[in-house]
């Protein structure tokens, strides 16, 4: 699984779990699917610990965590 697939599995499988058949598209807004501050913090820890990518805190903005697409692009920028 690449980083985007792992992220999608984590977000829709664990963080905001929903029926696999109904998983939103990668450009769907996560804010419409129950993302809140506690879940955002958990997601950042997942990216750091499981995907081994450090995301700078100052870059955490609504635009970057809007969707799977935007998070994946952001992770890509910081891959070592």
């Amino acid at each position, binding site marked *: 699984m690449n980083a985007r697939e792992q992220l999608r599995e984590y977000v829709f499988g664990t963080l905001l779990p929903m*029926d*696999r058949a109904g998983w939103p598209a990668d450009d769907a807004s996560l804010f419409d699917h129950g*993302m809140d501050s*506690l879940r955002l913090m958990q997601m950042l820890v997942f990216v750091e610990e499981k995907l081994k990518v450090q995301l700078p805190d100052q870059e955490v*903005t609504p635009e970057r965590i809007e969707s799977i697409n935007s998070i994946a692009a952001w992770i890509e920028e910081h891959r070592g």
Partner: protein
Amino acid sequence: MSSSSLFTLLENAASSYGGRVAIEFGSDSLTYSALLERSRRFAVVLADAGARPGERVAFCFKKSIDAVVSMFAIIRTGAAYVPIDPAWPAERMQAIIDDAGIAIWTGTAAPPAGLTGIAKSFPVPDAAAVDRWMSERGLRPVDGPAPAPERGIANILYTSGSTGRPKGVEITTLSLVHFSAWGAEYFGLTPEDRLSNHAPYNFDLSTFDIFAAVRAGATMCPVPESLKMFPYQMAKFIADRRISVWYSVPSALIMMQLRGKLGDHDLSTLRHVIFAGEVMPKPALQTLGAEIPHVTWTNLYGPTETNVCTHHRCDSADFADDGPVPIGRAITETRLWIVDERGTAVADGESGELWVAGPTVTTGYCGDTELTSRRCTPAPDGDGLCYRTGDRVRRRADGVLMFEGRIDRMIKRGGHRIEPGEIEAALYRHPDVRQAAVVPLADPVFGSRIKACVSAKEGRAIDEAGLIAFCRPLVPTYMMPDVWHIMDALPETDRGKIDLQALAREV
């Protein structure tokens, strides 16, 4: 006594500090004179629509200047304002509209389609809209004192209810006037101060930022909802807005400490940090205190029903030891008792339930005399009623109170008060659910996360995704369980009840 009206606070501010900025939001601001004028004008429109003492008006706003104008406009009519979070599911909004008997709506947007009972709606009450409504109806601003609200009730704050329906806590004008007077003096607020307004309007925390600021002629700086998930942006907001008094739930502060890079921001204007609504973990306070050494740290305590009733300014001993942060001592004119199950005062140093009496205490729950009579009972000293908090506390040898937990099942998640019964009631509406129980899991930042344990009826199948989809229209996001456990059967105690302690122990 003229100072016993909330609208008088605004009139006094406009007369003493008329040219000073009352509120700043985005690139807009409003002086105290303009805030007074705009709220007087909108009040005439609302009064024409039927807002008056005894009526309840929906107040469904995102953080904005229009929100504060509308709050004072509703207060001016003598009606009670009822905050409704725009992010709540429509079904919860409807339950509140029905419960409070709301017919008039004010808000950042029109009511969601399908809500019933709203006869008149005033969405986006900006200055141009109010001008239009006034000219359509040929209305002019009126002078004279604002009428007092019926039974002195200024607003009704809805919180999670254990029976599955939210319950409305009646907050009096006396409570808000008393608390804002105490707060303005205790924190030495002046017109130079700039107060953050972080908590949603349906939290009692947000009344401090608004009414204490107005009392002092200080500037309110609402924190946009879009920043609240973003600790770095929030810390930058404190620096950019030159905030001098910050008040929030501890989790907002802990998020800023963990991911806000506090050292990147110029926080030199900050002088007081105040927190309330949940337990502040001691390690987090110690780290915060080391990173922002030049400010005072104050813990305010009180369930919605008592507004703030105790306070504790953290001192060097608090930062040095590892024990919990005290909830402190009573604010002025407030009486406290620590009692056992029979209502008898416990021995010194023993723990018991905290009962509270004084000017900030609620008159009861909207339309629920049965619940009111169970929780608001005659005060032990015979002087009026007291509120039974359900919080277990202990008095330390030096006299400060220590919070030790709940005597019932209420959970705090990020400062939100959550009755497991409300989530369980939603789950039991699912046709395939046999048993449902909701328990807290300890979380270092947010106090608790929520775990739902569910079993299916014989021959039926349920899964996490289906239950979440079912609950989403029924419970707000902040109540949505974080962890789901589908079980064949929930463990039971000897007496045949679901064994909540066993469920809480499982990870």
